[in-house]
């Protein structure tokens, strides 16, 4: 009985350890939801995903506690002056690299929100990764004004 308990405890510890390793492998920074009109049919979610492992990791599913019809992963691409929105099955993050979810690029869309969250609200998300682990993210709603970064000439968000 005692050995059973310690085995169970060991498994629990191991799984906790596995979770923390996975969490460390994919670091999520600056998660935010773009503030949107009260009748917005879709909400954009952005963040930086940094992969510290030597294997590619992909986000394969997104869930949220917010009342929405579903969440999608998208990528915006501009070709010949036309903006194309292309739904994605996953968001890949190469080994020892990062993928930035930002306006005009990779992003998560929360479709048909029952109630659009307002500035300062927190939106809870779960990212399901390609290795089967899940990672929780709390994204804050903020304004989506753009700023040009004079150093990199890239569009940056406030």
């Amino acid at each position, binding site marked *: 009985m005692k050995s059973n308990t310690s085995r169970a405890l060991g498994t629990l510890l191991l799984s906790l350890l596995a979770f923390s390793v996975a969490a460390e492998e994919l670091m999520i920074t600056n998660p935010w939801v773009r503030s949107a009109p009260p*009748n917005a*049919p*879709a909400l954009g979610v952005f963040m930086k995903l940094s992969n510290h492992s030597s294997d590619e990791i992909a986000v394969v599913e997104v869930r949220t506690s917010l009342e929405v019809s579903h969440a999608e992963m998208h990528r915006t691409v501009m070709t010949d*002056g*036309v*903006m*194309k*929105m292309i739904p994605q099955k996953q968001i890949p993050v190469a080994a020892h690299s990062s993928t930035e979810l930002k*306006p005009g690029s990779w992003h998560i869309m929360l479709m048909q929100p029952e109630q659009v969250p307002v500035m300062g609200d927190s939106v809870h998300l779960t990212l399901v990764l390609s290795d089967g682990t899940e990672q929780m993210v709390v994204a804050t709603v903020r304004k989506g004004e*753009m700023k040009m970064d004079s150093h990199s000439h890239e569009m940056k968000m406030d």
Partner: protein
Amino acid sequence: MKKKLSGFIPFLSALVLLLAGCQQELASVKTEAAFILPEEAAIDGLKLTHVSQGDFDSDSVKGKWSLFFFGYTHCPDVCPTELYRMAEMMGKIEAAAGLKMESPQVVFISLDPQRDTPELLQKYVGFYHPSFLGVTGEQSTIDRLAKSMGVYYQRVYHLNGKVLDPVSQENVPEGLENSYLVNHSAAIFLINPRGKLQAVLTPPHDPDVMIRDISSIQSAWR
């Protein structure tokens, strides 16, 4: 004769300078991101509707500068980004007291009248800036307007990560009728106070660059 010429030459020089000054106007304006049309272009199909103003037509763009952007409220990424940028531009124009420019009327034209009713559209657009107007109309009118301004757009349906293309309204798979995305041009169009297309602001749109370009065009325009 010599005496006569000596008086004529300064007059001629002044005339040349004056003419040069006129021609200098728009053709020689150096813009950063705006493409100025060599000649203003007429717009066809401007017979749209605004929820409270009613008709939005050629009279609605006369006597003022306007910016047109084509989009739709279900637009997940590009339209909010562009609306935020134009809102930031408006904020900067309002904040800069010494700025010598006329604040443009920003008009968001729906490419998706099927889903964007005038009420929904204005509620959506007004969130970004209270002065923004959201206008819509018959699909055929919007098609004409878009064509006359060189705006490309295409309705696209996706199923299981694949683009269903081409799709006509009749053979859209059941359940996907309202799920389409609209790929579209992301340019912003500058309409002059005669109601004619004067310049195209190409993306990406930096609010400060837009202000400088619009201001340069306005001061050279007559």
